[in-house]
């Protein structure tokens, strides 16, 4: 089976005036289907930058990326947006739910926006996903009436709405208390195990990394260690 993610020689240099900062210096990273990988590193090690590059939110200075066998570095902005919508899922530290929409509408949003509206099948899938993340009794609640943990669970359901091949999570438990963080981690493990969804989780939390199937540590813009 081909790799879900195959990144080769990823380099990223930021320019600040005359000063150049090499954040990534040639990272190679491959993810197999169904993996739950923790991307670790100290602040400034380049893990968020690598996640943004893999998520097609940032273009690398050098290197190649293939997602599910498809090379993506030559895609236009519109094609990258479409690719993100159809093939990738995102979970961020801050959920950024749409406050004027219900939990179901928030989950369905990634599918509804390009289609021009929420269809009955979309609504059904969104409700199934909400049931899956344990929010059967909150489906029609406005996002503003959900707790922090519930909002992050809605964000996970939203990331899974379009059945992505790769889910990218940036500090997904960073803004949650210990109990809510445990629930979110359990949920991601469950989805990973049962749906064979591939996760790349960027974190600086050892406790989160310990729950993953593989740990990749970045140091000074390069992969320092990989532990299975």
């Amino acid at each position: 089976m081909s790799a879900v993610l195959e990144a080769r020689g990823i380099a990223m240099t930021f320019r600040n005036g005359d000063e150049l900062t090499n954040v990534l210096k040639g990272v190679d990273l491959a993810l197999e289907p169904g993996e739950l990988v923790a991307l670790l590193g100290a602040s400034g090690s380049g893990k968020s930058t690598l996640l943004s590059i893999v998520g097609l939110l940032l273009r690398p200075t050098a290197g190649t990326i293939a997602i599910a066998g498809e090379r993506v570095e030559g895609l236009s902005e519109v094609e990258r947006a479409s690719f993100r919508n159809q093939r990738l899922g995102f979970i961020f530290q801050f959920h950024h739910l749409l406050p004027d929409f219900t939990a179901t509408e928030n989950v369905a949003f990634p599918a509804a926006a390009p289609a021009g509206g929420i269809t009955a099948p979309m609504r059904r899938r969104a409700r199934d996903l909400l049931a899956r993340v344990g929010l059967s009794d909150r489906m029609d609640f406005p996002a503003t009436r959900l707790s922090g943990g519930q909002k992050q669970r809605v964000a996970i359901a939203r990331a899974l709405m379009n059945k992505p091949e790769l889910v990218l999570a940036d500090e997904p438990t960073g803004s949650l208390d210990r109990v809510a963080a445990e629930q979110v981690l359990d949920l991601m493990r469950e989805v990973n195990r049962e749906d064979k969804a591939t996760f790349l989780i960027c974190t600086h939390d050892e406790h989160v990394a310990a729950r993953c199937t593989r740990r990749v540590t970045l140091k000074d813009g390069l992969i320092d260690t990989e532990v299975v």
Partner: protein
Amino acid sequence: MFAFTVARRYLFSNPSQTALLIVGVALGVTAFVFITALIQGLAIRLTDDVTANSAHVSLEPVTRVARVLPSPDADVESVAIVSTFQRRQIRAWASTVELLRSQPSVAAISPQISGSAFLVKGEAVAPVAVTAIDPSGLDAISSISTEIISGDASLGADGILIGVRLAETLGLSAGQPVLFRTDRGVDRLLIVRGIFQTGLQSLDERVAYLSLQTARPLFLLPEGVTNIELKLTDPARARDFAAFLAEATGLRATSWQEKNASLEGALTAQAQTGTLIQIFSLISVLIGIASALSLSANRRRGEIGIMRAFGVSRRFIAGVFVLQGLLIGLVGAGIGCLSGFALCSWLATLIQPDGSMVLPIAPNEGGYIAVFVLTTLGAVLASVIPARSAARLDPLEAIQQ
């Protein structure tokens, strides 16, 4: 359309702010409607006042100019002699009247002999501007018969109608004789058949009406007339119609606008002032919309960033903000037009003790379609700036903030 649903939700998410925004737009539109209706009403009143008792177009013979004659034998050029014996008159007035009758835009025709004369009563002498007309067309240009306050409007062979101020000056009353002396030195005793009071000083003090039949021997014009006065169905078209008549008849045709150039200038200046006020009220409305939507876009940076991250197109994001502008424009302009019409209609009912309106406002002339379209289009345009800034938001930057 999902962008419409999102736009609607955004507007309803903060009802008080949206209501305030719509009220602001509606107030701007109401101000626009009020100014437009007031300026139009003022223009209508002034035009009515000027044209009510005067012709919309006057036809006169062309002024004859002495030609310069070349002299082959001498260096000095000579000037042709123009006969001053012949009066300036329209000889073929009957055929001109026929032509005018065939024009649907002509409401009334009055062939006239106009001239100067004196009325003499004992030692008192007063100059008068004489208007000699066909008695059946007495009211064609000015409504005289309804303004008679003494005697009647019957212009017989020796009758004359004078204004109340002139009658007071000469101590005349209806039925009394008065000596009529023309500028040609012809005298005749006429009977004051009626005294009118139009309220216009120029008419009541200076003008006397005779029949054409009476005037012909007095002004030595056995056949022709000196001028033909016209009323049109649409006074605003007088300038164009005058140009047409000048071409068609070879006569000098003067519109009421040309005769009242200063009034036209004042009306133009008034309209330009109104336009400036309208533009400023629209601009303030549009700035309000643009700033409110910009604030909204800024407040929703995180949401927009996450939408962009999961692949929602820039066009969709821009559409959400443009649709918000459209909805605000449509509702605000609609309410503003209704409230503007209500305000103008109420103001039109306020009457002064003399029966005239407190404000010369024309509620039906509020420029409703123009302001509705301009405000709605303007609101859409005003939303383009925040829409573009929202659509161009870097998702990574927005999410990290």
